[in-house]
């Protein structure tokens, strides 16, 4: 199937964006946006739809199997991983649009600077102050929270998140719930309230967007219970509601 990729390009952060249209032919039907980008960049004879040569497209990738979050971008209007976007499935009228995530500064083309997301984790003191094992009944929840890829898809759809604000969004809330499966001290609860709960408009736009399939509802409900409603069972376990 012939697919036309409409790729939003920008040579540098300050440069004017433009659309590059390039054709890609799927053979097996399993080809993804990541595969198409890799193939185009590997072809020294690459041409756009008008027959004009173009320089390699800047984008980030690493694992190509939904486990690292590197290749998050906006594909046909939806934030997703390029390695998970099967071209034939996402195409509309034979066209696939590829845009950079909009909540982060663009570096070039489809590559964005996601460092603000990591700075937020530092502000959240995202580490175990007191070492300890996961409580036995929280193993599954800690597992789910530990899956977070830090890809940024949940932030892209969030109506309340913008880089630079005190609200850090689900990409900070999910990792925090990993730590709460071990311990839940007052400082952590305060940080959670300040940087997650207070800024969250409860739109749940982040529901069902996570490429790792994390059950965000469940983690938020339980973190809110622990950090905001202070529901705990004997022994300080916040999870039993």
């Amino acid at each position, binding site marked *: 199937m012939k697919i036309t990729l409409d790729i939003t390009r920008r040579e540098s952060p300050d440069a004017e964006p433009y659309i590059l249209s390039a054709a890609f032919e799927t053979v097996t039907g*399993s080809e993804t946006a990541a595969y198409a980008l890799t193939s185009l960049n590997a*072809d020294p004879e690459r041409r756009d739809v008008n027959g004009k040569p173009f320089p390699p497209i800047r984008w*980030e990738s690493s694992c190509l199997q939904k*486990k*690292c979050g590197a290749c998050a971008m906006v594909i046909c209007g939806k934030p997703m991983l390029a390695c998970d976007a099967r071209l034939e499935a996402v195409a509309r009228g034979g066209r696939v649009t590829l845009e950079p995530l909009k909540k982060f500064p663009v570096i070039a083309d489809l590559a964005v600077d996601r460092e603000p997301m990591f700075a937020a984790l530092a502000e959240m*003191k995202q580490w*175990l102050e007191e070492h300890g094992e*996961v409580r036995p009944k929280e*193993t599954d929840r800690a*597992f789910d929270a530990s899956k977070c890829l830090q890809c940024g898809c949940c932030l892209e759809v969030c109506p309340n998140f913008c880089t630079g604000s005190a609200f850090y969004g689900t990409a900070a809330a999910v990792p925090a719930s990993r730590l709460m499966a071990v311990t839940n001290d007052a400082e952590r609860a305060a940080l959670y309230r300040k940087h997650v709960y207070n800024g969250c408009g409860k739109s749940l736009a982040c529901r069902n967007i996570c490429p790792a399939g994390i059950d965000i509802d469940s983690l938020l409900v339980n973190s809110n219970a622990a950090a905001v409603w202070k529901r705990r069972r004997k022994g300080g376990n916040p999870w039993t509601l």
Partner: protein
Amino acid sequence: MGRINIIGAGLSGLSAALTLAEAGIGSRLISLQRSERSQSVLAEGGINAALDTMGENDTAAEHFADTMKGGVYLADPNAVDGLTRNAPAVVTRMAQLGVPFNRTSQNGIMQRSFGGQKKKRTAYAKSSTGKMLMTALIDEVRRYEVTGLIQRYPHHEFIRLLTDGGRCTGVRIRDTGTGLCADLDGAVIAASGGMNGMFPGRTTGTTMNGGDVTAGLFAQGVLLGNPEMMQYHPTTIGIPGKRCLISEAARGEGGRLYIMKNSGERSYFMEEKYPELGNLMPRDVVAREMFFVRRSGDTEGEVMLDMTALPEDTWKNRLSDLREEIIRYLGTDPKKSPIPVHEGIHYFMGGIDVNERHCTNIPGLYAGGECCSQYHGANRLGGNSLLGAIYGGKTAAQTAAAAFTDCPDREPIFTEMTDPLLEEARADFSERLAVILSGGLGIVRSEKTLTDAVSAAKAMDLANEREKNRLALGLAMLIGALERRESRGAHYREDYPEASEDYRKTTVAQNCGGEIRISFRDIPERRTDREDNA
């Protein structure tokens, strides 16, 4: 304050940075992308340690024996002794950092069977053990990033080692965003991963492990050990742009390999030929048997992995993530139907030559994790890579720390630089080289296929320094395989099908201006007076 430079922010690099930070020594963690994108997050099945939580009286001595035997006695026994002796402390520490290991009913760390090991020794978190370990370690490292002891340089690329009089004095890096370069002072720990980029699209690894660090260091005089030793994992599937691993845990939990005979019957060839370990023979054996059984005249089609008899509890609590992945990529539910599997390049046992303390031949340069040749000999056991990465990074850091002398640190100044190594290899060059390397370095090798590959490689046209360095690395792999005239572990020579005691030695490759020199070095004797450095 002086700092130690760590190239790579995967499991080994993080382990090194943490070890240095806990000793009060600063480091720079330099990586092409953030730790979340590193190959370590892909590791699935588990991490080995003789924790003995399964009531089988497991011991570190047995872990040592299995690792040495699995590697067909090519690994340094003193290094393996340290690895296996310290393994329980490594896993216990990770549990203390909040890794959600699967648990026994008595809340011990659950362990499962893995290839080449007779006892249940592999601790795991479903089929996402690497990701779980990484998440915990990333968080722990963050504690020291906030204090400034660990400085991260994400989106920075290794360009070259800086040396003075044969000693490593620092490293040149490039900011991949701005293109500007800086020379950083201090010792260097390479933790840059395996050489997947020598085989683009043909391995289970990430695209970020390009092999350029190893190729660059090799060109700068760093010796390589056993470059011909690369592991084909028996169970992988093809997905767009790469091979996707089907964890060994699938067989550890009871999955069976079979192939259809022309007669219409299933042949469970591993169980028939190896009654004791069956489907859980070491990976080199399984991969080779798959190759031969497929080539045999009385079989047809692909080798199939049958997991349909696994109990519901196993799917729910131990392999739920693996099942989801298989359904996504193959459209087949492994709970209901067998799936076709094929061997795929998975791990590089060979790499930067290091001693037991993870020193390279260049003073001031150390290496840990998959980029170096240590612990795994001629074939790595499943569950030993995560362990080797954490323990190897830690050991490299301990050695670097012991040699560390604090001195004022120059703040890195990023400027435009001219350096021939800034120009990257052409993608089509790497692809052509990969075709040649794949022809020589298959599961079954021979004098003819290797000689042909060497000739073809030497005839390649080179456009820049990085291509020259990549070619030299490829030639080291090929010529190492050519010179090792025996079969051992992952290296199988059809023309020399038996192991030879004459070759129970480390292949050492040296790059002399593009010309490859191969020599063989004796394996150290095992010391009996070891101190435990846990």
